[in-house]
């Protein structure tokens, strides 16, 4: 099961390619020696103990903070500055509190020069697509946690990024809302198969969603210690798939590795 994906990579230009990437904050080395390749349309989940530098890695890929060492390539081009192909769904609330749901979703197109009325029409369509018809004029503080995530998702997807970066996007939601959102995410992804980097500390979530699960070691100087292909059938239902034999088998296999890292992280 330890897949290297070499076969895939040689055929097509990878959507994302990281070579020897390291990041430091002062003297603290967050990640070091990270090599990671994601094929176009691949859903890659990154798991690891808390504080292993998973978010750091997403920020590097987003171009928000350039790496201290190493190379990042996006569809074969070296990344300089912000990653134009990427949409970023943040862990914390990232909506503009002074804009309504509609204005939040319409912002991306407006910033890119789309006329306001057209941007609003597209935003309205996206809001109903994420199940928020009728909530266009609500401000973020008037929405529940799950609804805010839906708005944030629509805000990112309206720009149809080729790469979707997700940093524990559903971590703060209750279990039911979370599974609902996970299924919706899968349905949206199934439509046009973006490349997804999905960071989470929840192994079950990672397996249920992804084509591949990458395991990070405990920090400091986190690196990749495991890379597992998830060959579960699609389309999936995240709640049901957890009960299948294939799921339990791969879960057991990855957990064996992740457990050690979690223990090490706690021992520190």
């Amino acid at each position, binding site marked *: 099961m330890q897949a290297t994906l070499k076969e895939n990579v040689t055929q097509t230009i990878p959507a994302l390619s990281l070579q020897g990437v390291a990041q430091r904050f002062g003297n603290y080395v967050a990640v070091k020696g990270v090599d990671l390749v994601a094929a176009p349309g691949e859903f890659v989940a990154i798991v690891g103990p808390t504080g292993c530098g998973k978010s750091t890695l997403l920020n590097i890929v*987003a171009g*928000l903070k350039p790496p201290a060492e190493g190379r990042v390539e996006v569809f074969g081009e070296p990344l300089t500055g*912000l990653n134009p192909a*990427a*949409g*970023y769904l*943040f862990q*914390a*609330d*990232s*909506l*503009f*509190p*002074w*804009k*309504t749901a509609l204005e939040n979703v319409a*912002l*991306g197109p407006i*910033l*890119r020069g789309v006329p306001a009325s057209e941007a609003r029409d597209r935003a309205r369509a996206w809001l109903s697509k994420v199940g928020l018809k009728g909530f266009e004029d*609500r*401000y*973020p*503080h*008037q*929405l*529940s*946690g*799950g*609804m805010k995530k839906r708005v944030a998702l629509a*805000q*990112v997807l309206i*720009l149809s990024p080729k790469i979707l970066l997700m940093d524990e996007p559903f971590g703060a939601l209750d279990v039911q*809302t979370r599974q609902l959102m996970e299924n919706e995410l899968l349905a949206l992804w199934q439509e046009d198969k973006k490349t997804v980097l999905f960071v989470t500390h929840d192994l079950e979530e990672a397996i249920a969603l992804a084509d591949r699960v990458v395991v990070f070691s405990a920090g400091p100087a986190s690196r990749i210690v495991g890379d597992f292909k998830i060959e579960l059938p699609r389309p999936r239902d995240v709640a049901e798939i957890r009960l299948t034999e294939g799921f339990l088998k791969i879960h057991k296999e990855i957990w064996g590795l992740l457990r050690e890292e979690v223990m090490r992280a706690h021992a520190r």
Partner: protein
Amino acid sequence: MRARVRLLQLGLLVFLIAGWEVSVRAGWVDAFFFSKPTDIAARVWEWFSTGEIYGHLWITLWETLLAFLIGTVLGVVLGLWLALVPTASAVLDPFIKALNSIPRVILAPIFTLWFGLGVASKVALGVTLVFFVAFFNTYQGIKEVNPVVLANARMLGASGSQLLRHVYLPSAASWIFSSLRTSIGFAVIGAVVGEYLGSAMGLGYLISQAEGVFDTTGVFAGMVVLAAFVVLLDWVVSRVESRLLVWRPVPGQEGGTV
């Protein structure tokens, strides 16, 4: 609950005024030093019925508004600049602190010397007060911009000027608005203190004239008009504020329904 509080407030007010009136009439306190509420009310009525007060009110209002506008614009612009350009803030920081430490009253005579006895010297004094309030609040507001929202805006493709328009300014708006409430008060102080120390018009002048002839009724009447004036201005600003900050959560109204 609300009605009860209002009732108690009214009761307290009536008690204080009646107590004052009775104490003076009974001769427990000297009317020469304390005047009395009925006289003060009569004086205020006289000022308004003869129209004598309007000229003074108008001048004070004009000075207040000018000081408020000029001081706020300068403060917001400089606050934005220093918050967004770290070098500028590092260089100017000690200068701003030093300037802000000057007690403004001592500037009044020198402003009178520079700008004359008219409106300009009062506006200048008000600006020195208002400027720092607007400046510090804008600076703080920009510094406290949520970094996640900022990163989100950048990922969505915002350029420098778009960041200013869609993130920095709206984010600082609640700070700037809370500064406006304070600023309008300071602008009045600037105007009235300026008038008090040397002028020929305005509420401050009126009070200082009354003091000059030991007319305590006039002094108290001036204070009453001044207080009403400030309360009215503050009300107008707070109306504008709540109109422009509809997006801000009201405490207890957080979170919607699923």
